[in-house]
């Protein structure tokens, strides 16, 4: 269906209503999907997933997320172009924003699919009884368990050794893990299947990937609330520990989380919005998408935290039980004399009467709060904490299968957005001839991405994914968003934009939009960006490595990135950001050359100064 792509660009309004109905629902759905992915990511980075996180999250949403969302949706809907075309239209010097968005989408789709690979690996391993991450394998002479597994937990062992086969240092690349390569190929094949004809197939796939997670999450909610210890987890979620707000890292994470959650700055929103009819109420869309997104994040966090509470409670009980056994052994007390309830009174009694004995036992202090606070950073939440909790639930295979299918569909819908963000600008720039079938183009993109992503299946792959996650997906988005707001407000001039939006929605822009677009959002973005840079410069970036030979094993070893890795981090941040000045420079040079040669007629007339309202008829 080539017509539908052409329509988006050529704006046939109303002749193909079914195509507009579908993408319209889809633009809402895609926003919600990103919201899901944001939940996944937020749930995944649980060191900030506490009750106090909700406060900076909502502030960032209000002053950064919703204004930017509205801006991008309105832009795409009005200009009827993808991100590169739209920014070229605003000002030829700002065309770099579109290119930067494209580059960010490319980087993210490269590494994001590897996370899906891990999810798929866990999914296909969930069909076994017992679950492979619940038991330790035996050592060679079968007298005990594998040492690495015994020292840490079976879940950790399965994640670090059986799945990642992780190397102790980022400089050691290790080998390609063939099982991960298989799963990666399958994941890219699924992505190809769903984006094979662009929006057409993606639109249908999104219906499944949008509805299914809601179902599974509801099931998990019901199950989670019936687990013991769930209430502790929920209380922990909703009681803010305000001291964490003093850490600027939390604010930073909230700001960057909003971007990922609402997929701002990726260019995908502009592309999706360009399929909408012109007179669509984009303001209502923006607010609806943002609210639905936050509500789903909140809704998703309830089962997550009840399961976390359950896991913490079980760990706490195990700790208590171990101590109780040690005490009963030592003092020859009858069984069931010390129970969990009277543990503290017994401990105080014994401490006063036999302090040396108690000290000799080396009891671990069991504190429920401490277990709840235990933060697992990175992808640890889904693959370590949750899998451990799933083992404890009855019928663990079914829960594991459901959970990983849900994660997979969440991640897949984010991938759609990313791939769309890669696909559409390529079509727009007409790098590929029109006659080439879309299937071929998407196939080539998927194949190239698969080959590049093979380097994430190395032994050190997960360290690289952490780097991409930390650097490629946070700072460039801030920069892009900043220039987006500045570009629209001060270069395109906000008054003109207000009139355009008014023409589309039929109402005047109210004060909230005016203030946030003019002052608050750019200011906030600038503050977050400078804070990020300052924090990064304060100490050299470090990472935690899984090293079985480390003395403190099973704690992870803190290491500093070697200089060449730091250079790559800087490159990841700089690459998209460089597009902005480079594109402006390129355009400047072109202008100068054209002004020197007056015979050449400038071909791009649409630098939009004084564009009329019927702007919906772009050049052919």
């Amino acid at each position, binding site marked *: 269906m080539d017509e539908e792509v052409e329509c988006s660009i050529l704006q046939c309004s109303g002749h193909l209503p079914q195509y507009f109905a579908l993408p319209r629902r889809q633009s809402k759905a895609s926003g919600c999907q990103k919201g899901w992915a944001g939940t996944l990511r937020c749930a995944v980075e649980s060191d900030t997933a506490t009750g106090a996180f909700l406060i900076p999250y909502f502030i960032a949403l209000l002053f950064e997320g919703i204004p930017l969302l509205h801006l991008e949706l309105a832009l795409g809907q009005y200009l009827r172009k993808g991100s590169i075309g739209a920014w070229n239209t605003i000002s030829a010097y700002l065309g770099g924003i579109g290119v930067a968005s494209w580059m960010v989408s490319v980087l993210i789709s490269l590494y994001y699919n590897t996370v899906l690979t891990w999810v798929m690996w866990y999914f296909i391993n969930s069909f076994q009884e017992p679950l492979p991450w619940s038991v330790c394998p035996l050592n060679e002479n*079968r007298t*005990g368990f594998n040492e690495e597994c015994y020292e840490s937990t079976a879940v950790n062992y399965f994640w670090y050794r059986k799945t990642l086969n992780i190397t102790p240092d980022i400089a050691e690349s290790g080998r390609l893990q063939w099982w991960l390569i298989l799963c990666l190929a399958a994941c890219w*094949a699924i992505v190809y299947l769903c984006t*094979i004809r662009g929006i057409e197939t993606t639109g249908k796939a999104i219906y499944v990937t949008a509805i299914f997670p809601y179902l599974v999450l509801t099931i998990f909610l019901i199950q989670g609330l019936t687990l013991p210890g769930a209430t502790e987890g929920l209380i922990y979620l909703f009681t803010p520990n305000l001291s964490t707000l003093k850490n600027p890292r939390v604010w930073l994470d909230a700001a960057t989380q909003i971007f990922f959650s609402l997929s701002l700055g990726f260019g995908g929103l502009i592309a999706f919005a360009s399929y909408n009819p012109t007179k669509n109420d984009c303001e209502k869309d923006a607010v609806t998408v943002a609210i639905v997104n936050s509500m789903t994040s909140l809704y998703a966090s309830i089962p997550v935290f009840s399961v976390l509470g359950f896991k913490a409670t079980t760990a706490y009980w195990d700790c208590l039980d171990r101590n109780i056994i040690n005490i*009963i*052994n*030592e003092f020859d007390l*009858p069984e069931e004399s010390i129970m969990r309830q009277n543990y503290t009174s017994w401990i105080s009694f014994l401490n006063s009467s036999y302090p040396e004995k108690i000290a000799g036992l080396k009891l671990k202090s069991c504190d429920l709060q401490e277990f709840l606070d235990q933060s697992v950073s990175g992808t640890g939440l889904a693959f370590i904490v949750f899998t451990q909790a799933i083992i404890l639930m009855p019928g663990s295979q079914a829960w594991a299968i459901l959970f990983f299918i849900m994660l997979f569909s969440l991640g897949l819908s984010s991938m759609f957005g990313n791939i769309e963000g890669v696909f559409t600008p390529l079509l727009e720039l007409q790098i590929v001839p029109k006659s080439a*079938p879309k*299937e071929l183009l998407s196939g080539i993109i998927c194949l190239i991405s698969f080959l590049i992503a093979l380097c994430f299946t190395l032994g050190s792959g997960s360290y690289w994914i952490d780097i991409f996650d930390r650097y490629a997906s946070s700072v460039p988005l801030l920069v892009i968003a900043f220039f987006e707001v500045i570009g629209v407000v001060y270069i395109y001039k906000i008054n003109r934009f207000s009139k355009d939006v008014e023409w589309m929605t039929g109402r005047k822009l109210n004060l909230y939009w005016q203030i946030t677009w003019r002052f608050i959002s750019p200011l906030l973005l600038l503050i977050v960006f400078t804070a990020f840079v300052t924090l990064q410069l304060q100490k050299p970036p470090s990472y935690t490595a899984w090293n079985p030979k480390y003395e403190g094993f099973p704690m992870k070893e803190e290491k500093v990135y070697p200089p060449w890795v730091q250079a790559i981090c800087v490159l990841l941040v700089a690459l998209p950001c460089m597009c902005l000045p480079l594109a402006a420079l390129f355009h400047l040079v072109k202008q100068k050359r054209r002004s020197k040669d007056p015979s050449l007629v400038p071909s791009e007339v649409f630098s939009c100064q004084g564009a009329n309202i019927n702007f919906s008829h772009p050049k052919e």
Partner: protein
Amino acid sequence: MLSSASQMHRMLSKYGLVSKQLWEIMHLCHITKCVKAQRMGQSRISILEQLLAEIGMIPIAENHPQMMNNLLSTQYAWDANEEYLFKAMVAFAMRRYSSKSTTQISNVLLCNVTDRVSFWFVVTDSSKNVTTVPGSEVEAAIRMNRNRINNAFLLSDKTLQFLKITSTLSPPVEPSTPVWLIVFGVVLCLIVAGIVFLIISGIRKHKKKNKESTERENLEEKVEVTLENGIPCEALDIKAGHVNGVFAADDERFTSL
């Protein structure tokens, strides 16, 4: 502790095994307080009594290991009858191991039975004049018959623990092809089938469109021929229905302003 030792003394004397040497050695048993048994527990089972005892082997030689017996009774109380059964099982194990039928129940001695059912036990050899069987032999015998002993007491390796006798863990059942490969194969087949289906349907649609567009081109040529004949409008009028259809179709392809 002292009372149980004297009990032991009484028991030994009953069987005529007492000698001063043995008594002193027995005394040694409860003075050299050995490491308490570790109760490995699943405390979630309802426990009626818990028996933990310390068992030590009387050190005849330096390298005799100390054994501990650790019993967790889930369904029964530990009394003299259970002790008798235990002695019988140990005697049975010794008989099977060394295949000489001389070991009697009376040869197995328990001492230091505490409330938590842990005790030391010793196997004596009546044929060799009140010497004890070396620890390594007893160890090997019990290891060989561990399963039977466990089942006699309805316990497992975890709940009935002999110190110094580590159990050989059974390896998990490995199917010939790992399960995940099978699932992966199924998933991959589905994906490939979907891709092939979509590509083929795309190619077919493309071919149909090409055929339609060539048909349309043929019609257009006829129209052009008619247009070039004199007055286009009259020519159009004559060919009214035919031509209008083509033009109307063309119209819809353009975007309306």
